[in-house]
């Protein structure tokens, strides 16, 4: 694994610290020539890329919402919403505050059960599956209000994500069996690559709650990617970012898609969504009011009406 990634081999014996290059990979990267760096980044992207079977081909519907309704008492947060996400695309989910975007994520990831309607992944209904089972089926998400494991380091947070695919039993861990050791080594390898991929490897050893805000947002993405999802759902990942940071993040999202993931993106900032998404679904008051290519959405009178007078995130 380490040969593949070009990561430096470390002898297992004690005294390993003395063999180390000062500063580790992160510092080494600084010293690389642009070509070497590009090569390293390609290797990292290779480790991060999904290598699991996906039942649907490129462009076919990966996930489908069918007439999904979510009710909270008298409030209808989602009203018979239907749309599909195609494999390999970046789908934007937009709408004014309170439109039901997060609720839509919650209905997809098992946080809430739809009052009626169905969510289908690769044509199979999610039904009454538990949240962790849905994750294993291949839907991962980030949270609008960051929810990291604050006392864990960045690397540990990501490894928790990789654990979604692990099978070590309690007994295996207790006795440090061969599977445990193999999974631990692979998990750390993949988690380190993920941290590099999202660009926060230099703070891998810091507790999540001590990380700067932008790093926390990126760590959420790395942790979700670690579960090897078929579909990655990002809930306002650029909230609170300045325009330059937003632009960088959109670059990352494109990179994730180019690496072979399907992305569902909630974003408030219209301009940004237009630039990065392949298609857009618009919600207002729990109803889908439009669906189409970014250019169509921009000119759609219903969408313009919904957004009129609603300040975008940058101003809020």
């Amino acid at each position, binding site marked *: 694994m380490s040969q593949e990634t070009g990561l430096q081999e470390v002898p297992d014996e004690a005294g390993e610290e003395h063999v180390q290059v000062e500063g580790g990979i992160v510092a080494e990267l600084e010293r690389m020539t642009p070509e070497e760096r590009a090569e390293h980044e390609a290797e990292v992207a290779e480790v991060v890329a999904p290598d699991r079977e996906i039942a649907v081909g490129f462009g076919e519907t990966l996930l489908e919402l069918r007439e999904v309704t979510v009710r909270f008492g008298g409030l209808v947060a989602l009203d018979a919403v239907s749309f599909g996400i195609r494999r390999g695309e970046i789908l934007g989910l937009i709408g004014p505050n309170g439109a039901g975007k997060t609720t839509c994520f919650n209905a997809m990831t098992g946080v809430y059960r739809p009052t009626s309607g169905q969510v289908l992944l690769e044509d199979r209904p999610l039904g009454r599956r538990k949240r*962790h089972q849905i994750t294993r089926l291949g839907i991962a998400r980030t949270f609008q209000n960051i929810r990291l494991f604050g006392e864990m380091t960045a*690397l540990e947070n990501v490894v928790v994500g990789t654990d979604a695919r692990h099978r070590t039993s309690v007994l295996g*861990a207790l006795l440090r069996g061969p599977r445990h050791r193999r999974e*631990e080594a692979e998990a750390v390898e993949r988690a380190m690559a993920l941290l590099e991929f999202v660009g926060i490897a230099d703070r891998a050893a810091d507790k999540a709650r001590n990380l700067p805000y932008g790093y926390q947002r990126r760590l959420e993405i790395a942790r979700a990617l670690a579960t090897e999802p078929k579909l990655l759902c990002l809930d306002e990942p650029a909230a609170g970012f300045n325009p330059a940071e937003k632009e960088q993040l959109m670059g990352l999202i494109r990179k994730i898609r180019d690496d072979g993931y399907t992305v569902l993106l909630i974003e408030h900032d219209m301009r940004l969504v237009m630039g990065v998404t392949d298609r857009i679904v618009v919600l207002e008051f729990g109803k889908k009011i439009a669906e189409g290519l970014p250019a169509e959405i921009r000119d759609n009178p219903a969408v313009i009406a919904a957004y009129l007078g609603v300040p975008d995130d940058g101003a809020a």
Partner: protein
Amino acid sequence: MTSARNESRRPHLQQLGEWWNSLPRTRQWLVLIPVVLLIYALPVLNPPILSTEPGTNFPIACFNAARFALIALGLNVVVGQAGLLDLGYVGFFAVGAYVAALFTSPDSALAKLPYLVTLPLAMVITMFFGVVLGTPTLRLRGDYLAIVTLGFGEIVRLLATIVPPLKGQVGFQEVGHPPGRLPDGSLIFASSNGTPWYWLVVTLTIAMLMLVGNLERSRVGRAWVAIREDEDAAQIMGVPTFKFKLWAFAIGAAIGGLSGALFAGEVGFVNNQKFDVPTSVLFLAAVVLGGSGNKVGVLLGAFVVSYVPDRFTELANYKYLIFGLALIILMIFRPQGLLGARQRLLAKGREAYQRLIGRPEQVSSESALAAESAKGVGA
């Protein structure tokens, strides 16, 4: 004022932690082995500054401290690692003690087993109790779980009083002990002789420490901490939370049962008198005092909670008052306990951090806390 106090103490602890963290593993062992030998030698050395005599026999005091350490270690899995507030832990301790008594005491109608066999048996049976209690209750969260476990502790005690074969206050005499006699024909594991018992408990505690450490640096330990930090997020990241909470409960229960059986063996007598709620709270105090979630911390907390009343016998009657005040003061100035919670959760973590950024991980929560309190002062 508070931050000034923190500041003056921070560097020492932090430096110690960082120094330890930066040592290669072989060097850590070189430091650890003499420390462990010293711990084993403690009851024989009976150092004057530490001695609890004449108030309490020193080897017995050592045994008590070691027993508390084992209990704290088990309770820490439940409370410290998985974040499940368990106020009925004494119930598991009691079950373990009764298992040892029922299978070894001549007062019991059950078949007799060798005492050493009752130790693993006590673990298995308490583990079963842990699963039975956990299955319906671990769907509850926070305060509800605390109340239900509190009830469990009381139920065990009441059953010991009410159910005739458990003999209530009369109890069981002559509970078994490990075999072996000294050259002069006296028992090695006599109740009056704390030293061999102490060695037995220390050995078992070290074994448990290593096993729990293995769990900590695996997906099991990570699942526990993830549940403690944010149960919903853990579920969504693919952690089967119920399963791992149940495991935490079962493993904690097994260690509690083991210490109960050891306690029964050393004292040689078991009745319904020693398994009340205050004892449960005392166990919890050991964990919180030392640093919930930190294995070394809870051992330290257990030592303090057990040693102080044995050493200062005139204060023993006020121990709940003293520990209560100590906890309140601690919660104000150092809410993470004497040693903050910082567990390593990766089997290959050291190498990974070293390779990636060329330095070890952040060990203490100190800097963060200092930053927070500084902000608080500034605001």
